[in-house]
């Protein structure tokens, strides 16, 4: 899978490249509008990560350009602006997703996977980890073929983990993404512990080969269960 990162900040560009390469992608990068235009004209990418606030040209113009070439490149907009208007404008121009800065690499990686999956039309929104299967549309989870009923938040948490296998997930980040703006830095995360405890028990009871593991006592990691 080949990615193009269009980001003018050298440091961010570099860490994004490095992180995505370590996940097995072929990554190229561009820092300016013209550089990006060159690369897009010459090569084809599975997914383009586009910072729409480039110094030498409007990123949205670049997006129009990419779409006008009609090579089927997927585009994820990366922007410092996170208003609904900006998102709508970007998605209207044909972007596949919109990610506001600052973001987590894990989040970016999950979005790339999701966009690429949408690219191959045959695959429905089904995720797999070990013997766990999760369908995003029907919100059903099965382990080794048999259904495991989960509560709403348990499902959301499992989905979050399945999009980030092997990543350390901070409990506060998890809480923020599952409960949204409702949680506050001053909160304790008792409610997260309780939900995770239930989820782990349900997965273990169903003999899942993947499960949530506590890491260093600060967060969690979704990984294969050691026999």
């Amino acid at each position, binding site marked *: 899978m080949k990615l193009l990162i269009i980001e003018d900040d050298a440091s961010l560009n570099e860490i994004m490249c490095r992180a995505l390469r370590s996940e097995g992608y072929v990554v190229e990068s561009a820092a300016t509008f013209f550089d990006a235009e060159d690369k897009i004209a010459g090569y084809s990418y599975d997914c383009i990560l586009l910072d729409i606030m480039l110094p030498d040209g409007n990123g949205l113009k670049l997006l129009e350009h990419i779409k006008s070439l009609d090579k089927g490149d997927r585009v994820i907009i990366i922007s*410092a*602006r996170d208003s609904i208007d900006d998102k709508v404008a970007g998605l209207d121009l044909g972007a596949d997703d919109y990610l506001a800065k600052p973001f987590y690499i894990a989040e970016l990686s999950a979005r790339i996977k999701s966009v690429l999956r949408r690219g191959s039309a045959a695959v429905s929104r089904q995720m797999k980890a070990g013997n766990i299967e999760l369908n995003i549309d029907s919100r059903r989870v099965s382990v080794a073929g048999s259904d495991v009923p989960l509560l709403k938040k348990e499902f959301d948490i499992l989905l979050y983990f399945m999009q980030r296998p092997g990543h350390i997930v901070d409990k*506060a980040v998890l809480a923020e993404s599952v409960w949204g703006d*409702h949680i*506050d830095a001053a909160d304790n995360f008792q409610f997260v512990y*309780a939900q995770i405890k239930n989820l782990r028990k349900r997965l273990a009871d169903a003999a899942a080969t993947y499960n949530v593991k506590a890491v260093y006592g*600060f967060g969690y990691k979704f990984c294969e269960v050691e026999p």
Partner: protein
Amino acid sequence: MKLLNTILVRLAVALLPILALWSVVFYFAMVEEINDEADDSLEGYAELIMRRTLAGKELPAVGDGTNNSYVLEFLGHDKSVVPSMQYSDSLVYIHEKRETEPARVLTTCFSDADGAMYRLQVVMPTFEREDLLSSVFWHILVLFLAIVLTIFLATIFVFHRSMRPLYRLLGWLEQYTPGKGVSNFPASPSVVEFRNLIDSARATITRAESYFEQQKQFIGNASHELQTPLAVLGNRIEWLLDNTALTNEQAAELNKMQQALRRLVRLNRTLLLLAKIDNGQFPEVADVNIAELIREEAETYSEIYAGRGIECVVDLPQRLVFRMNEELATIFVTNLLKNAFLHSPGGGKISVYTTGSTLIFANSGSEALDSTRLFHRFYKQGKTGNTGLGLALVGSIARSYKMKVEYSFNEGRHLFKIGFGI
């Protein structure tokens, strides 16, 4: 006190003694003049009698209808009597009227060609003079009041005419909200002072508007510019945690950095949101059923704070519609609820209800908060760790929709009252 009233009171204070003094002086001058006239007339009458006496002619009858009377006494050659003239006031009995009246009396002694002395006493009742004086007094009083009233009316009229530019400026300033520009500013009048006042006011407000605009843009730009370095920091920490062999200690340190960074990100995002609300960048409005929104959010919060044993009672009508931006409505409700949950002691009680056209969020608390600073940015009391921007968001949203949000503390309960005036 209104400017007009102040001017009238001061005018009254200044004019009343002056006009009163003037009236008193005028009154006494008139009295003097009238007495003088009366004395002249007495003298004329006395002279007539004297001349007739000396000429041996017939003296005027006493009851001639003028109420004047006289007494002529022959004194003979009394050497002790010298010619003289003396005025006095006394009471006389007037036959025609059959009553005693105050009178002016002229007593004079004179001698004829033989040197024989006569004493003449001429009496003129003064009731006419009294009438005259009282009439003068009343006229002066009426005139005095009329002058004062006229001055007042003229002042009021002139005041309203001349002060119109001032009141236009005041009216404009009253409806002025910072950041909304200087449209419909009163035109410059022809009076120099008012022109200067209005021009200076316009210049000051224009300058303030431009500062306000710059400040808003600065906050917006600064927040946007911060997003990229924040992303770099966060992503690098994340990379370290995911891809390098770390000791538990190192991982713990990185984790703490991430926590601080998250707070920074949240703070930045909220400041940006505040700037956008103040900039009016949420123009779309819809009919939002606030009651339904509150019920949903309250359920979520009850779940999050389940461990603290807080009881949350939402007692709202089925529909309670606010016309506002949906995103802002959610931020408004979540921040009020979050505030209530965050600051309620364990086992406390939260209630959301309406009275009339007021929506009330109430939660248990021990002491009143500083209501003047409660909706300011970064105002925190007690609890640390939160951004201190939640209620600032609430205040900002309320301001942008001209909703009234009030805080009060009553019997161990914090009350946030939102007037929605539908």
